[in-house]
């Protein structure tokens, strides 16, 4: 485990301990369970964001890829359990497709990632609003299918196992496979990677595609958690995904970072919000403190990096 990841984990631990001291009930399992579930949504989008950041890219289309997938799920699933497999496939497929187009635009057409993914975000927003006519629940058949809601029931909700599975997938992919090596090589020095036979463009396309898939997964899980899809569901997750990645010790320039750090980053963000809410800090104060805490963490990282 490298130093930056250790740092991210330490920060998460400090924030969680602080939370336990400040607000009673935070340290109990129901309290932690709530934090973990909310952190898992950030964890999913941040997994995708991290993958593209590792090659020096960025995915700004996450909010509406997430939202589009959620809408696809509810409108094709119609709240019926037997339609769930089809609805899941369509929702994930939509996310992967959006990511694929992002990747092709960035890698083959040479469109800057910021422009390409921001454009995709706008296109999907328009498309989703147009197709859904602004209505997410024309009738009550559009609610989330029951099996999806059941993911969040129980002492140890299955949703957390989904997160664990995603974490294992990303970690194994990055550390044990040739693909993972090529990802880090591309992020560290694309020219040298290319001259060593790495298919830099193919790697880039694959990562954006995966990011789209992870955004869709987050959308699906949010539908299960909230019971339905709403417009604007994904809006908080652009900032959250980037913040979790950066607080998690991933270099925004590419080539450095891993998912354990991003998990710690996601927990940190959610724990800070939860603690502030428990302290009954008004909304405007929460936003300010939240922002300041992230800046403080990054400032500390910056100091630490200077000693590398």
């Amino acid at each position: 485990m490298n130093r930056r990841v250790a740092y991210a984990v330490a920060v998460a631990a400090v924030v969680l301990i602080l939370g336990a001291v400040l607000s009673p009930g935070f340290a109990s399992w129901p309290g932690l369970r709530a934090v973990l579930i909310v952190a898992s949504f950030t964890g999913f989008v941040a997994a995708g964001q991290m993958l593209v950041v590792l090659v020096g890219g960025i995915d700004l289309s996450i909010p509406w890829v997430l939202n589009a997938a959620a809408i696809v799920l509810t409108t094709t699933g119609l709240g019926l359990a037997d339609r769930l497999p089809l609805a899941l496939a369509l929702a994930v497929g939509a996310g992967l497709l959006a990511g694929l187009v992002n990747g092709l635009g960035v890698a083959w057409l040479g469109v800057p990632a910021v422009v390409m993914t921001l454009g995709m975000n706008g296109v999907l927003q328009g498309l989703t609003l147009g197709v859904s006519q602004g209505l997410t629940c024309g009738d009550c058949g559009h609610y989330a299918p029951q099996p999806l809601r059941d993911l969040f029931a129980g002492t140890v909700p299955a949703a957390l196992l989904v997160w664990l599975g995603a974490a294992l997938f990303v970690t194994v992919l990055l550390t044990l496979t040739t693909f993972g090596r090529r990802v880090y090589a591309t992020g560290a020095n694309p020219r040298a990677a290319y001259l060593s036979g790495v298919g830099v463009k193919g790697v880039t396309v694959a990562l954006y595609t995966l990011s789209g898939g992870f955004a869709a997964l987050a959308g699906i899980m949010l539908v299960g958690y909230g019971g339905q899809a709403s417009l604007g569901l994904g809006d908080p997750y652009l900032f959250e995904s980037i913040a979790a990645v950066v607080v998690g010790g991933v270099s925004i320039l590419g080539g450095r970072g891993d998912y354990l750090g991003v998990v710690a980053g996601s927990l940190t963000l959610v724990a800070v919000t939860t603690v502030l809410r428990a302290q009954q800090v008004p909304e405007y104060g929460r936003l300010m403190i939240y922002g300041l805490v992230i800046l403080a963490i990054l400032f500390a990282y910056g100091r630490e990096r200077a000693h590398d």
Partner: protein
Amino acid sequence: MTVVATGVGRAFGGVQALRDASFAARPGEIHALAGENGAGKSTLIKVLCGAIRADTGTVTVEGRIATAFQELSLLPDLTVAENLLLAAPPRGRLGLVRRGRLADEAALVLSRYGATGVDPRSPARDLAVSQKQVVELVRVLAMEPDVVFLDEPTAALAEREVDWLAGHMRRLRDAGACVIFTSHRWREIERLADRVTVFRNGTDVATRERLTEEEAITLMTGRTLGATYPDISGIVPGENALTVSGLTSGRLREVSFELRRGEILGVGGLAGQGQRDLFLTLFGAGKPTAGGLSAGGSRARAVRQPRDAIRAGIAYVPEDRKAEGLLLHLSIRDNVALATLARRSRAGFIRQRAEKAAVSGIAAKLDIGAGRSTAQAAGTLSGGNQQKAVMARWLLTDADVFLLYDVTRGVDAATKHDIYHLIADLARDGKAILFYSSETEEIAGLCHRVLVLREGRIVSELRGPVGDAETIVAASIREPADA
């Protein structure tokens, strides 16, 4: 004394780059700093010119200072003119930069210092490495400094440009300036320096007015080396490994030749005559507009990208290991394994044990980083060891054809020696080697045959070990381009 450093120490992370180093230079002398990579020369220069602080010791420098760092510091997206006049651009009445006059003023500066052949309007990124270095040097010279630090100023320069620089260094000295430079080419130190200070392991070991190469190498390394170039007369080239016909690409014009197994074929000529285009195109990283190549006797699959070239048994070791070779903050192991990942994998998963064995085997064979763990970042290695790590990556591919492009650039004497012997061993094993070096002497000493390029064409082919660089240089400039 214009420049005095006493008891200087400086560490980076855990690495002690300078320890109790002392140095003094006076006005009106050219003073060379000699030593292997990692001996502390560059760090000393950075401390002396104020780019970094010393942890311990004192430093005094009197007069106007100008420095050309080893890492070229031109801004790639600005033009030559903008780079040259960055500090003091021509200004109009309101203090605004007069852009219209930039190019003219820059042209004036360039011609005043005799740097012809550089277009002040072209972006710095489009220049060849040698031209960038010339611009960097003109920028330094134009300050008319009292104290000049030149860190490896000739590493990227061809013979003719070295002469040009030597003239300026002497002129500055005769005008009373103190000129301090580093070089890995002993001939230049011998030719130019009034005094030499030798560094080893972060400290000064001797300052002399006269020093032979053998003495210097002994001082630098603490050991003595055998004959400089390995004897290749016993290696007899075999069957064809690579056939190039009518290749046209970038600056290259209809280049045809054959490269045989066991042969070390040199590519000579002045800098920037298409050598780089030749190497990159053969490796699939440049697009040919005409002609082509076939590897292994039969027409190889079209080589459209480096991946295809690697599959066809071609390896390319680049000149600029930081830009094109290494992933500096990734581990030595990641770096060495990169070109052969798929060979040690099952269903996309890396066979960790096989990889570890392969990497530590080759690292031990090449003596990379003196037994250091291969889990450490490649950036912690000294320059010579970094170059060895890049060589190791390509040795693992077990390619038939090795394209070695200026692989000894900026590498210390001991590592150069190791690399020469490595190349001879490859030839002995039946590998075909295409070799380019910015030091023509290396081509002369190491190759069975030399192709001389001029304006993208082969203008001459010299057979047998050429022996002396002068023959190659003469061939480079003698014949007219359209002959």
